[in-house]
């Protein structure tokens, strides 16, 4: 029975993964990922980590993916072709990915580890329960727990900082004070690309990007 569930969940996860990569519309990619996450939750359950499975569904599929959906709606579909410019890279990607998978598979299967050939350690009741995780978090892993909360704080601040309106260049208005940042600049104050001559800077007089001795 458990093997059947395993196979269904595994195929679901892999299908979801392929969907994320292959689907054109990013909206559909997000949905594929949600399916993938739910299959993964099933796999976690099969491994008796019920709390993690629940957290996965609630936090990951529930909150993070919803955030993703918001952003995708805001930005729009933006269906793009895979090519041009990616042809050579597709071959390299296929090669690298294939190589990676083969190596990892060999590592796993060819290692001859006895421990992973079976079902694992004997099941202790309360293995994946919240009590076990909670006590571990507050005793053995207290420090990572606190650091993780700090990390969340930093991420929240970062998100707010990134999204706030800055003076000058923001959405919509063609700034009246475009002169402030579109004036011709003195030598050596542009970006590296402008300096080298690959990109033309804004409003510069017709000046050949020079490479001086």
């Amino acid at each position, binding site marked *: 029975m458990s093997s059947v569930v395993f196979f269904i969940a595994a195929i679901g996860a892999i299908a979801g993964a392929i969907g994320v990569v292959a689907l054109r519309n990013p909206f559909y990619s997000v949905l594929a990922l949600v399916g993938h996450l739910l299959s993964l939750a099933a796999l976690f359950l099969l491994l008796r980590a019920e709390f993690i499975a629940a957290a996965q569904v609630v936090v990951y599929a529930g909150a993070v993916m919803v955030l993703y959906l918001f952003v995708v709606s805001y930005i729009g579909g933006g269906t793009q072709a895979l090519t041009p410019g*990616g042809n050579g890279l597709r071959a*390299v990607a296929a090669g690298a990915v294939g190589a990676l998978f083969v190596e990892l598979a*060999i590592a796993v299967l060819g290692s001859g580890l006895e421990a992973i050939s079976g079902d694992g350690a004997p099941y202790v009741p309360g293995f994946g329960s919240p009590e076990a995780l909670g006590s571990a978090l507050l005793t053995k892993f207290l420090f990572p727990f606190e650091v993780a909360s700090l990390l969340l704080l930093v991420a929240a601040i970062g998100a707010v900082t990134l999204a706030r309106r800055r003076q000058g260049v923001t959405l919509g208005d063609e700034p009246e004070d475009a002169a402030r940042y579109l004036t011709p600049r003195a030598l050596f104050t542009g970006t590296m690309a402008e300096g080298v001559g690959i990109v033309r800077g804004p409003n510069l007089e017709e000046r050949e990007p020079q490479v001086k001795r």
Partner: protein
Amino acid sequence: MSPTTYGWLVLAFPLAGAIVNGLFYKRLGRGAAGWIATTAIGAAFISALGALVRLQHHAPDHRQLVSSLWDYAVTGDVDAKLSILVDPLSVYMILVVTGVSTLIHLYSVTYLKGDRGYARYFAYLNFFVFSMLVLVLAGNFLLLIVGWAFVGAASYLLISFWYRRETATKAGIKAFVINVVGDVGLVLGTFFILRHSGTLDFLATFKAVDGGAFATHHGALVAGCLLLLVGAFAKSAQIPLHTWLPDAMEGPTPVSALIHAATMVTAGVYLIARMHPLFEHASAAADVGAVVGCATLLVAGTIGLVMTDIKRVIAYSTMSQIGYMIMAVSAGGYAAGLFHLMTHAFFKALLFMAAGSLIGAMAGAQSLERMSGFRRSMPFTFGCFVVGGLALSGVPPFSGFFSKDEILAWVGGRGGWFVALYVVGYVGAFLTAVYTWRMIFRAFFGDPCPEARELERGHLAHAEVHTNPATGEEEDTDVGFPGPEHFIAERAAPMKIAMSVLAVLATVGGLIQVPHVDHVVTTFLEPTFADSKYAGVEPSNSLVNFGLVLGTVVALAGIALAYRIWVSRPGSAAAWQERFAPAYRLFASKWWFDELIDVAVVRPFAAFGTFAQRTFERVFVEGVLVDGTTSVVRAGSAAVRALQTGFLRYYAALLLLGGAAVILYFLIASS
């Protein structure tokens, strides 16, 4: 106070004078610089007298005192210290140097009045005296080289004193460059000697040489002495390093008197006398010195016959007399050579001073062709010229007679091939008399020239437009050119006093070493030369007497010939010139030494320099090395820059590939 303390004082006073004049000249009043400088040298002279008196209190074999003030670097093979050696030779030299310098400073106080560079002149002059004293008081090779170099620098500074005059600056550079050649010889010679003696100190070196340190390295000793001779020849203007001395007459006349007559050019003589143990062991080098000295005295004498610039006549005369001194000390006649050094300082400085007075009367012109008939208008100057001329020609009882004849007697007494030098020496004496009195007769006899006539009426000639006496270019009288006023001895008390003292010394100075009567100089210098193999050796009495008579005859004959050509039969000079036209051309072009050095040395070096700059520097160093390096670096960085495409996906691909490779490695390694 001990003699060495006086020695340090002798060094300190001129240095203090130079520093005060050099740094505080703005705060000093007008004319104070001259008196400060003269007082400084006067104080040095008194200290030198003090050193002399205290030294004589020591027993004769304890009269070589070393005093060391500071150790620069005393390590395994090198003992570099700041030490002076006070012994009879150095006391003799400092007495001559400070004594004559005091008189010349006194003379310059008036001579350079009105020149905008007055204080600078006296600062330089004091610095020069300091350097010369360092040279002669040095107790080891290090300080000798330092003094040698300083003296060369001071000479350069003073020759190109009127620095806006191009002829003067060129002459200064010429003098300095030839001096540097000598410096190289000196330093290399020191190295050759240091290698086997193991010490820089003079007394220790001499002891080592006498003790046989060079017994198996005779070649090194000869090489070292020859290189020292190169230094001596450059400094003392001997052939072939003599071409700077006539050009050095571009400097003010007191400078010519001090540096290029009395003191600096005698440094070579001092060097050979001081290094006498080395030269006595390396007799080949000593012989070279004697031959070169003899050749110089002859060549210089011939050139002096035809020069028209009065200062250059006296310059070639100096060269010739130094040739006598070099010949003497190379042949072992140390006391004779040094005695002539002293008397020469007296009468040559006197001649230069008198020439300065004459040039002042001519409002700056120096050409003999324009001077005549100053006898009535400038009696004092004429008297000084006569005294100096008689001393230079070697007429008894003037000082030059005794010193020159002692040299020639010694050289003749050496026997062997030295007899040739003896003969040439008397030929040179004849030429000396001729060119000296040529100069005097031309300038003072005959019809008075316009300037002389003005002076007879009591009016000193002034030039309307100041010009360079050599090229006739126009000048002004601002800083860098001579001042607007000219002075003559008859009207300037300091000049008169200085010249009078020198005239007296030139007359009676020789009486301290009259043959068969007294030998003050030899006795005084005995402690220094006690280790010489010629100590106590004297030429035979018959040779001495013969020399005295021959010397007098030769000198009077020369004066008589000069009188005949330039006074009693005017116009015969032109006839002689025509009769000996090839010889005249040879002498007038100074034996073509300048042209020879130009072709042999200057042009190859200039060509090499041009090649180095145009080809080597531009093509190789800049093109290949510098530009090559930068282009290699730029190409490399361009290659590396190609990696940074900015494509995120390429970076990710690289990351992935790298990760896969690492995992592969671990897989293989662990299996």
